[in-house]
């Protein structure tokens, strides 16, 4: 069995599972947020049980529209908070919260070998830790909150092998944008994506989170990494439960194995309005921008902020470009302060926000007007994603977003660091 199959088999009490098989899998963690929890709670009430199956395995994070942007989002967060307090489940609100997919790994809540389900499509982020993590809907989460398990179809797995060493400004974001460009936004539909190879072995954890995060942008059910020393160094100091490590068998079967040599890869930019419209930054042409967003569950971690700060240090952002930096969690915010990154951003003319999903989904904190263009380290560039249906979002890594903030047009980091 491959990695996804091994984890799923262990969670449904079977010796072996095969792709296409319907199983009932136990979940180690069941997640929802201020947008998806309200519907999950209403559906949970319909089931007729009074208590969730295990309060320690259920977590709610207020992150999409908090600190609340308006009265209705305040009502939704309150609805979630009241339920969390009533049930005694884990919950994170303003002051402790972070963007859920940055926060849960940081708190040691997700461990290798876990099955995690979340009413958020980017739940697949935790695959970076060698967990099987996948997004679902609110009703799925409602049922799982009552029973502790959920139905699943065992996915096929596509194995990606990245050969070669990455260049200075190239990271996880570029590897995943490149793949989505190659296979398309439904290239891994219903499949698990297993990421391997020399470039992955050398990729820091933050880059792995970025890649797993965007598996859904290829239609994937999960994006999953093998557990290595980097994973263990990350989880061991944080874990509050025993860690169970799974590895694929030597004779594991894959629907497909795709190899790339990435040693000459440039930073990638996904043009509007699909993540699959990926191009090397040198082929983008002259695209003037109005906003640069550095943050999100994709690229709001400390290494992302370090890269952006390395480029912005001692420079000023272009007067036209609103540059918005959003640390993913309070801890990342604190680390960025201690390391002097916040000062670099503010001196450069950027703003630094409290953690929030905010602009990524056109919620608040950086909405685009008609005709405006943004370069963003987020994960989606659909029509109207960050505001007006006549605005445009260009997806890129933090180095490109920072360099573009300085020049006022989409730029390679080399342009401002030479």
């Amino acid at each position: 069995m491959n990695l996804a199959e091994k984890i799923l088999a262990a969670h449904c009490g079977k010796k072996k599972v095969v792709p296409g098989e319907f199983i009932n899998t136990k979940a180690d963690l069941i997640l929802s947020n201020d947008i998806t929890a309200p519907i999950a709670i209403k559906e949970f009430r319909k089931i007729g049980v009074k208590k969730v199956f295990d309060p320690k395995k259920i977590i709610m994070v207020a992150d999409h529209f908090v600190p609340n942007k308006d009265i209705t989002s305040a009502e939704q967060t309150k609805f979630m908070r009241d339920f969390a307090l009533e049930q005694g489940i884990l919950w994170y609100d303003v002051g402790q919260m972070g963007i859920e997919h940055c926060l849960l790994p940081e708190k040691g809540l997700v461990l290798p070998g876990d099955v995690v389900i979340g009413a958020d499509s980017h739940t697949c982020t935790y695959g970076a830790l060698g967990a099987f993590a996948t997004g679902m809907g609110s009703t799925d989460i409602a049922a799982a909150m009552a029973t502790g398990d959920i139905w699943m179809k065992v996915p096929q797995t596509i194995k990606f092998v990245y050969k070669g060493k990455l260049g200075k400004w190239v990271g996880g974001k570029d590897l995943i944008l490149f793949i989505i460009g190659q296979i398309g936004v439904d290239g891994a539909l219903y499949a698990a994506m297993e990421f391997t190879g020399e470039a992955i072995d050398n990729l820091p954890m933050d880059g792995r989170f970025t890649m797993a995060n965007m598996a859904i942008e290829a239609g994937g059910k999960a994006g999953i990494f093998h557990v290595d020393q980097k994973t263990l160094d990350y989880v061991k100091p944080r874990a509050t439960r025993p860690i169970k490590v799974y590895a694929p068998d030597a004779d594991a079967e894959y629907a497909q194995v795709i190899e790339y040599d990435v040693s000459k890869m440039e930073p990638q930019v996904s043009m509007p309005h699909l993540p699959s419209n990926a191009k090397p930054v040198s082929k983008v042409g002259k695209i003037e921008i109005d906003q640069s967003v550095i943050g999100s569950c994709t690229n709001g971690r400390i290494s992302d902020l370090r890269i952006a700060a390395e480029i912005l240090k001692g420079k000023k952002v272009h007067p036209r470009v609103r540059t918005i930096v959003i640390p993913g969690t309070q801890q990342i915010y604190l680390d960025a302060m201690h390391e002097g990154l916040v000062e670099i951003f503010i001196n450069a003319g950027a703003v630094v926000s409290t953690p929030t999903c905010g602009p990524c989904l056109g919620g608040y904190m950086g909405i685009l007007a008609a005709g405006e263009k943004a370069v963003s380290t987020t994960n989606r560039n659909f029509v109207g994603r960050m505001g007006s249906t006549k605005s445009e979002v260009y997806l890129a890594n933090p180095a490109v977003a920072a360099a573009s903030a300085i020049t006022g047009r989409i730029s390679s980091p080399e342009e401002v660091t030479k």
Partner: protein
Amino acid sequence: MLKGKVHKYGANVNTDEIIPARYLNVSEPALLAEHCMEDIDLDFVKRVKPGDIIVADTNFGCGSSREHAPLAIKTSGVSCVIAKSFARIFFRNAINIGLPLLESGAAVDGISNGDTVEVDLEKGLIKNLTTGKQFTAKPYPEFMSQLVKTGGLIEYTKKRLASVK
């Protein structure tokens, strides 16, 4: 038997187009339905009539996990969605809340915007009443048929819990 006029779209219709996130500060189905398909088809909510059918190319419902998307479609009066393929989470959500989905590449190619289509869910038959052509949808796997027959995941879960007691 479902019957209605077709609203046809291309590939990769995403959940941000079906229900933009700026409206996700509420979760009441009726309020969501007011903005259904807004970012891809501004007049959809004015044109849609009860029973109407959405037909789309591949990967319908890609993007976010928001169950608000199938809820908005269902509450707008749409009786079912026919597509060449569906994004995974959208598929689960639709089945869970009782919005019927049918997968058939031939049907999508053989149906034009504005056609009148009749659907027999039980048999998976799709009939284009405008052209007279008939198509068969890919059947659901056994487990999913059961889930649909039981009335969705909440009813299914209730039964499961009751049988354990």
